[in-house]
């Protein structure tokens, strides 16, 4: 293209592109994805064993302690796999992964404890350099990066982040809009190696329903090379077919389906259970120090073989009291 016809880059963020954009490879992969209606039911351990490897770029949905795929997160920590790169829009699951020191690079938007403030795990891992590369984004920007990948395009334009150090430490680029002349930040598409989402209901093939707000499940589920679902409840495909408008994630996006009631514990799950406030308050104390966090991980993750063992440890009385 002639120079006079190209759009000049007015500004480039200093941050690196942690996950390279390869949309043609993504198209090839999507072409080959299994479209058969075959059961993908498996355990957390099988899913992590089959689909996750060292160094993968991973992401989680939703936010805070809400609908977080914690049973899969604990399986990841127990698996011994490590050195992950992360889309850092998650909170409780990411906090545990940082506590276990499994993250090396982060596309960072928010990792903290919301009303309870700064996370001890984030502080220890980022300030020490255990996490060696941090690139800044906003919540909308990171989600729109998934959206770009979901659309199959290499970038999406936004008015967010302009004029900030968040932009400076991102990997976005600023151009003048060829239609209006205004400045726009271009956000590079983000394709996850493996995504993890917890849903209210799924059938054995991976058709998923989510009750209430859907966060960024729609966009993220379509921006994954591999997608592992955990579901509060496994339902018949007939029930999926009775209300197809409720399917937010169709089966062909999904690689593994794990039946995991209370998967978001100690967080909450809409229409299923409340947050375990007592346990979370204990966690808030433990995460303040490395020693406390290690004790927590030993007792509540490493020393338990699987999700059922965790549920047994919590006990039916407690779990019943959390049911909505």
């Amino acid at each position: 293209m002639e120079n006079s016809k190209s759009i000049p880059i007015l500004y480039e963020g200093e941050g690196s592109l942690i996950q390279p954009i390869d949309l043609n490879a993504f198209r090839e992969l999507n072409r080959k994805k299994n479209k058969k209606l075959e059961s993908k039911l498996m355990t957390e351990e099988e899913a992590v064993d089959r689909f996750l490897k060292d160094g993968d770029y991973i992401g989680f949905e939703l936010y805070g302690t809400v609908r977080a795929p914690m049973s899969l997160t604990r399986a990841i920590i127990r698996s011994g796999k490590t050195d992950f790169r992360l889309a850092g829009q998650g909170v409780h699951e990411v906090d545990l992964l940082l506590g276990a020191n499994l993250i090396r690079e982060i596309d960072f938007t928010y990792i903290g404890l919301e009303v309870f403030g700064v996370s001890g795990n984030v502080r220890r891992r980022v300030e020490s350099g255990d996490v060696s590369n941090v690139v800044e984004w906003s919540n909308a920007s990171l989600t729109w990066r998934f959206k770009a990948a979901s659309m199959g395009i290499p970038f999406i334009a936004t008015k967010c982040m302009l004029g900030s150090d968040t932009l400076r430490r991102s990997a976005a680029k600023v151009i003048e809009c060829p239609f209006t002349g205004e400045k726009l930040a271009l956000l590079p598409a983000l394709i996850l190696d493996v995504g993890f989402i917890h849903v209210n209901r799924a059938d054995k093939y991976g058709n998923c329903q989510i009750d209430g707000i859907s966060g960024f499940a729609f966009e993220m589920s379509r921006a994954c090379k591999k997608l592992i679902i955990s579901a509060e409840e496994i339902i018949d495909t007939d029930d999926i077919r009775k209300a197809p408008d409720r399917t937010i994630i169709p089966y062909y996006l999904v690689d593994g389906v794990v039946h995991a009631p209370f998967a978001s514990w100690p967080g909450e799950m809409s229409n299923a259970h409340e947050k375990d406030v007592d346990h979370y308050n204990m966690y808030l104390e433990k995460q303040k120090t490395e020693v406390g966090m290690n004790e927590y991980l030993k007792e509540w993750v490493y020393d338990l073989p699987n999700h059922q063992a965790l549920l047994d440890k919590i006990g039916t009385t407690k779990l019943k009291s959390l049911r909505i």
Partner: protein
Amino acid sequence: MNTEYNPSELLICLASRIMEDGTTAFIGTGIPMLAASLAQQMHAPNLITVFEFGGTGAILEKLPLAVGDTRTFNKALHASGICDIMEAAQRGFIEYGFLGGAQIDAYGNLNSTAIGDVLKPNVRLPGSGGANDVGSCCWRTIAIMKHDKRRFMEKIDFITTPGFIDGSGAREAAGLPPNTGPYRVVTNLGVFDFEEKSKRMRLISLNPGVTVEEVKDNTGFEILIADNVEYNDPPSEEELKILREKVDPDGLYR
């Protein structure tokens, strides 16, 4: 009823009074949730609350404790997702946005990313989250801050969320939507706006018992003082009654 009030209750009332009826407010965790709920029950029954991860028009019967909380779509009019909400803000649909941070400067720029050099931080903070998006796209932002010299600084360590950047016209020059930006800063000492020409922070009203000197002494930059600085009314009996009995019956902020 006990008409004594604590600092949080005062901040909640001050923030609540700023919000107009028939508008939309992007609500963050904590004090903004209580302020919006109080405003709905005092003077703004048609204030629509918008929560980042998809809850619009919820009835805040129980206080949400997080922006993705089930309570953010309690009896709501719409439960969608973050793209729907952020895109609404980007196309000009959301009037007020609430912000907070570890540091603020005279132009209302906010830092919630890192204390010290971001590449080798003394304290790694939680990051932008939705703050940058709110500060970029909502029409009028309201920052709620604790007021001292460590927070009100001449130069903050990192601009997570742009205010007026370095003065008049800077937001537009950076490409941000025109006629947007910081509107008020509400602190334990008073309420501040931004002077039209310089876009610098200006004291417009003091909280009960606070002096102009106290504000100056606790601000790390030269603060403008409005010609007629008024005193904010303390929380009224009605405000306190609604706040304590309806908005926050469990006393989380008492």
